[in-house]
């Protein structure tokens, strides 16, 4: 017996035990690894550097960052809710409400994400208590300083001077995910309508379209391409992305926060049901002042933990959330399909 144990068979047995221990450990580790999501471009860099790496440092588990869009991620989870391929989803307010009501998300409270206690109620209400928004952006005016010497101060002035033919304006296409909020609701609200009466927005965009001075951008990079190639002189865009572009040496781009209040939308992160418990640690990191500040430095967007202190550079750039307009996410979500159809028929891009 002793000889057998010491012989090759015994070595194999011992090796098997060691392997089982090692692989068992690695399976346990893998079971706590998570897949998180991010939009493309600088978003991916920020999510990886500020959140995923921090998560790995603290827990030893890996957070794989998946690039895409909320609609795509939700579809992937809906296809396999019992063993979801994604554990944390970044998404817009209407998508959070729809997914939470469908039961795709775990309830997110201060018990499992303690840092939520420092997030203003406003950002929890924005997603009706299904967690909270972690960052927000204001839809501002960005212009080419070389071709627009006297930029407009308000959104209404932007519209009036576009109709006069002073420049070529680029606005998001209706095929851009946030357009129902920033275009349809945003302009309806600005011109005296509301979520149930969006005629004023359609009237404005019909005029802009008929003027021949408006084109459309289909993605956030498309806007920058149009401005860089001179296709457009001025447009409406996200404040953070505009500043990030300027900081990359494009100081010909100027930014105006409209005095008639920019539309603000915020982005939430939620834990998908049937995910490993480590998702809560990840989400707690997301809402923690340090990593959030890191995220904000990358994207130049406002973040929602009130304990975050912005760098001097960002202080003057980030539009205060209480100086913006926000739409009713649920009603916008309910009306999106109808608005898109109407836009297709009446405006066309």
């Amino acid at each position, binding site marked *: 017996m002793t000889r057998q144990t010491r012989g090759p068979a015994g070595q194999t047995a011992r090796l098997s035990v060691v392997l089982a221990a090692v692989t068992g450990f690695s399976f346990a580790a893998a079971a706590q690894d998570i897949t998180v999501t991010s939009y493309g471009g600088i978003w991916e860099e920020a999510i990886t550097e500020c959140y995923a790496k921090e998560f790995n440092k603290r827990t030893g588990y890996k957070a794989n960052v998946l690039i895409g*869009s909320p*609609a*795509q991620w*939700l*579809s992937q989870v*809906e296809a396999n809710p019992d063993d979801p391929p994604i554990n944390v989803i970044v998404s817009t307010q*209407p*998508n959070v*409400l*729809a*997914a939470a*009501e*469908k039961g*795709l998300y775990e309830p997110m409270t201060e018990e499992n994400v303690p840092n939520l206690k420092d997030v203003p109620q406003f950002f929890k209400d924005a997603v009706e208590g299904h967690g909270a928004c972690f960052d927000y952006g204001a839809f501002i005016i960005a212009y080419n300083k070389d071709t627009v010497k006297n930029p407009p101060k308000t959104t209404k002035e932007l519209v009036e001077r576009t109709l006069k033919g002073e420049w*070529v304006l680029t606005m998001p*296409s*209706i*095929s*851009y*995910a946030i*357009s*129902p909020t920033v275009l349809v609701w945003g302009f309806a609200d600005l011109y005296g309508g509301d979520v149930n009466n969006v005629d004023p927005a359609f009237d404005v965009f019909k005029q802009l379209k008929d003027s*021949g001075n408006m*084109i*459309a951008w*289909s993605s956030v990079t*498309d806007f920058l*391409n149009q401005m860089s*190639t*001179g*296709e*457009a002189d001025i447009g409406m865009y996200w404040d953070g992305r505009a500043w990030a572009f300027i900081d990359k040496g494009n100081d010909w781009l100027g930014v105006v926060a409209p005095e008639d209040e920019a539309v603000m939308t915020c982005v939430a992160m939620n834990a998908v049901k049937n995910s490993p418990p480590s998702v809560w640690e990840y989400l707690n990191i997301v809402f923690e002042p340090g990593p959030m500040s890191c995220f904000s430095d990358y994207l130049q967007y406002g973040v929602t933990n009130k304990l975050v202190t912005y760098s001097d550079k960002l202080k003057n750039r980030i539009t205060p959330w209480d100086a913006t307009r926000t739409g009713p996410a*649920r009603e916008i*979500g*309910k009306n*999106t*399909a109808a608005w*898109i159809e109407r836009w*297709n*028929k009446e405006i*066309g*891009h």
Partner: protein
Amino acid sequence: MSNTTSATPSAPLRRTRGFAGAVSPWWILLAGAFLVFFFVAPIANNLLNTDNLATLAERNPPSFYYKKLLTDAYYLKIVGVTVALSVGVTLICVLVGYPVALYLVRYAGRWSGLVIFLLIAPLLTSIIMRTFGWRVIFARRGILNDFLLSIDMLERPIMFLNGPGSVVVGLVHVLVPFMVLSIASVLRSIDPQIEESARILGANRFQTFLRVTFPLSLDGIGTGFIIVFLLANGSFVTLLLLGGGELRTLPLLIYQQFTISRDFQFAAAMSNVLLAIAVGCLYLQLRLIRRKGVKG
């Protein structure tokens, strides 16, 4: 074994039989099962789609969407634009591609390899890069406008982009190699002696082309037509990047439904209509080719 390798007149036939015999019915069954599982079943699911996906929008039965697509004037127009764009692009590809294919086969000689490389080279780069190249050229302050302004042909820049013209140019650029290669492969199989015979019998070059070469190459045009039409019918990136939303087709609307409305039922209905259009056009084209093409 010896039968199949012996140099008897029936040897090739035997080899053919041998090849056919080598294809086991199980392989055919496997291929059939693959098609059923990955093609027929998804389409059937699409047809009967009553999904229950996360959305705040109101749900409707599938018939609601088909009715809307087939009765609403707007959607009928979109269907018409989709077909017209695909047919238009395909015809332009024939007009552009045929001379290139003819040159490649009949006149390029030792340069034919280079011509084929030049044709295929653009396919090696991403369609997005190729399409973006057109944006740089067509931009309001782009190369084309700058040139036209510099020679005083324009007083102010023209918007070349964001319209049907730029989309057609982009699609033709992307798809014309498929047409050229389809036509060239058939032209290459035409015996030049047939054309020479026509010339000897008194036909001039144009008559020879019109009455001999062109009819004999109809199969190549037909093949190219089908490939280009189907690719144009489902094209999406070029429309998105060069059309600026001004030219709306079914693929663009499907994209909207998937990414913004999350109305998968409407998207499924649209994709089924698009598929039906593609199959219908394919059937018509095949009938046309059989009628006009070279018989046996």
